[in-house]
């Protein structure tokens, strides 16, 4: 629109130039030139607006008047309510995030020589279809960290910072000295220095045991210290091995965390070594031993990007991927028109780059930023393909937007009356922009 405005305004002197016909055309010729466009526009754009208006007051089959019933449905139907809520999210976040990123990119690319290459990369998604972008992001957001790159990165980061657990399925066996507590396990009786403790569990698949796990060994008593063993007490059948004591065939829980708890407070902790043995200081004397829940957490599987909670933000993310380039290019064009002397003057006056950006660049770009945001808002109202493609069937209801709901109501559920009410509602939302366009152009046309 920025350059659209420029398009209407001749760059030369503003002296009113006559655009009177040079040929002294007869009206019939003018009509012939205009006719194809006016017929197509009338039949395909204007007529549908009027028809939608009428249709929105009619029943499903279109032969009865139902007053405002269809509009009431707009605010009572669950599907439409979700769509409205999501549309608010879309209209608030998608344009602003895209524009903010576009602004940052436009300003930063001015400072590197290969800015053009960067702009090409960011702008490129605008050339592809929303369907292709949808398939691209369906892949990105795949739940399986071995398929979706978003979760691959997320799980990678998570596992770097959070301890991953090695014993997700471990649990006490028969006649165990341990009881479950808060996701972990705790001894029934207090332990004492000099008396080795046995903390047997079962249920860890052999191939899931840590690589450094060795044959379990009974802990030796040590004066003044609490010692013990934690291991996989896998006792097969009768007579093979002993329950509650490490056998030669059994493996220690290498790396298991053990905490000594007194009155609900952790007084000491240790990690089991390869053979499952551990040593706690004297402070643990008389405490209960706990194997905290962190040992038994399910392996972290990443974020359910396309689940009900995150599906809308995830799709908005893909929209930003597509449209930040649009914002960037428009803003960069605006930036090229900002007088360099102004920025230089501010810098000479000792302003930091941040101050120049905040106090000079952004205010000068405000008109362009407004145009970009408004344009994207209109665009966002029409988003259909991305939601239709990216949201899996199970969470499409949660990702619903008005444009999608219109399609569903009109073509899948056979309720064209309600769908027409949605379309009239969408039209009402863009009318302010329509009026703004007309007012701005009227000034230019009247010359």
């Amino acid at each position, binding site marked *: 629109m920025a350059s659209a405005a420029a398009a209407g305004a001749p760059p030369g002197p503003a002296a009113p130039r006559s655009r009177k016909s040079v040929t002294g055309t007869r009206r019939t010729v003018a009509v012939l030139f205009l006719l194809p466009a006016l017929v197509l526009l009338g039949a395909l*754009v204007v007529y549908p607006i009027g028809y939608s208006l009428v249709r929105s007051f009619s029943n499903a089959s279109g032969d009865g008047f139902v007053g405002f019933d269809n509009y009431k449905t707009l605010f009572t139907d669950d599907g439409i309510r979700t769509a409205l809520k999501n549309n608010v999210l879309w209209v608030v976040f998608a344009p602003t995030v895209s524009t903010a990123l576009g602004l940052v990119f436009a300003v930063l690319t001015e400072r590197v020589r290969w800015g053009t290459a960067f702009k090409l990369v960011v702008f490129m998604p605008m050339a592809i279809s929303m369907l292709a972008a949808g398939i691209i992001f369906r892949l990105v957001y795949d739940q399986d960290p071995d398929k979706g790159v978003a979760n691959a990165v997320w799980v990678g980061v998570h596992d770097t910072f959070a301890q991953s657990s090695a014993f997700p399925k471990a649990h006490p066996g028969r006649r165990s000295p341990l009881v479950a507590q808060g996701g972990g396990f705790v001894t029934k009786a207090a332990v004492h220095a000099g008396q080795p403790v046995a903390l047997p569990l079962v249920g860890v698949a052999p191939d899931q045991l840590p690589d450094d796990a060795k044959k379990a060994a009974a802990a030796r008593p040590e004066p003044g210290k609490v010692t013990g063993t934690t291991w996989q007490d896998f006792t097969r059948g009768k007579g093979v091995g002993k329950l509650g004591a490490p056998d030669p065939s059994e493996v220690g829980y290498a790396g298991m965390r053990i905490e000594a708890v007194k009155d609900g407070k952790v007084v000491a902790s240790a990690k089991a070594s390869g053979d499952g043995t551990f040593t706690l200081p004297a402070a643990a004397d008389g405490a209960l031993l706990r194997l905290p829940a962190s040992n038994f957490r399910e392996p972290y599987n990443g974020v359910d990007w396309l689940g009900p909670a995150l599906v809308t933000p995830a799709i908005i993310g893909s929209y930003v991927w597509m449209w930040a380039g649009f914002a960037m290019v428009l803003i960069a064009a605006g930036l090229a028109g900002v007088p360099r002397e102004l920025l230089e003057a501010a810098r000479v006056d000792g302003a930091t780059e941040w101050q120049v950006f905040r106090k000079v660049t952004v205010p000068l770009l405000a008109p362009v930023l407004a145009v970009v945001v408004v344009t994207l808002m209109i665009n966002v109202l029409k988003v259909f393909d991305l939601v239709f493609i990216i949201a899996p069937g199970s969470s499409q209801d949660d990702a619903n937007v008005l444009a999608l709901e219109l399609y569903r109501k009109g073509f899948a559920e056979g309720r064209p009356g309600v769908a027409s009410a949605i379309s009239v509602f969408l039209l009402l939302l863009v009318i302010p922009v329509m009026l703004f366009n007309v007012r701005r152009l009227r000034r230019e046309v009247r010359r």
Partner: protein
Amino acid sequence: MTATAGSIGKADPAGTVKAGQSLASRITERLSGGLVRVVLIVVGLFWLVPTIGLLISSLRAPQDMSASGWWTVFTKPSQLTVDSYQKLLENSDITHSLVNTVLITVPATVLVVVVGALAGYAFAWMEFPGRDWWFLGVVSLLVVPVQVALIPIAELFGKIGLFGSILGVILFHTGFGLPFAVFLLRNFFAEIPRELLEAARLDGAGELRLFARVVMPLGGPAIASLGIFQFLWVWNDMLVALVFTKSGTQPITVALQTQVRQFGNNIDVLAPGAFISMVIPLAVFFAFQRQFVSGVMAGAVK
């Protein structure tokens, strides 16, 4: 005018260090310059990775796809294969839908340019009562969402037998492309120097001749912008075709959309299919980047 206003490559040359700056400020400038570069490289990668993911996915066998992430290809390049593409191009549904996409896109683009240019010229250089009001009326239609027309036109096409036909889709795209076409071309044509038109008129050219021999050639840049913009718009459309086509007339976007329901099981169709559908738009984009950008900028209101 717009056709030259926009280009991606407009960056100022990177900041040059001026004499007389203190060493400290020069060092901070260097450091922040390095930071800017790092940020831009990371962001650029971030923007590229999704597309690269699709490309690599389309070049792997389905069993590899379900076994490991596409990024493992960097350690095992032997996984790459064009099997999926071969199979896809033997799939007559897909090839047929690609033909349909061309059959829809080319006429819809030509029609919009020709019809839009005729009207744009009339609005710019002919006199008739209420000219400016008619023009404003057309411009006001710029922001009408296509969704508004889906149900009315579906019923209309049903009555006159256009529903499901390629012609119907072409007409729909032409109708919704026209407000922008008329807006862009009228503004461009209005800038043509009057003397040029008068000279041609004195040579005895009639209105139609004037239009074809003078106005259209001079309007080249704007027509190129409009054509590319409209071409990409129609090529990439899914919603309109989804509503107005049936199984034999579907373009590639709709043909692929029907496969999305079983996402995961048929990634070997979806990934190469999506990539094939992207090739032409991307080629057009890279070849006519300038025109595309100016079209997008002029169409910022659409």
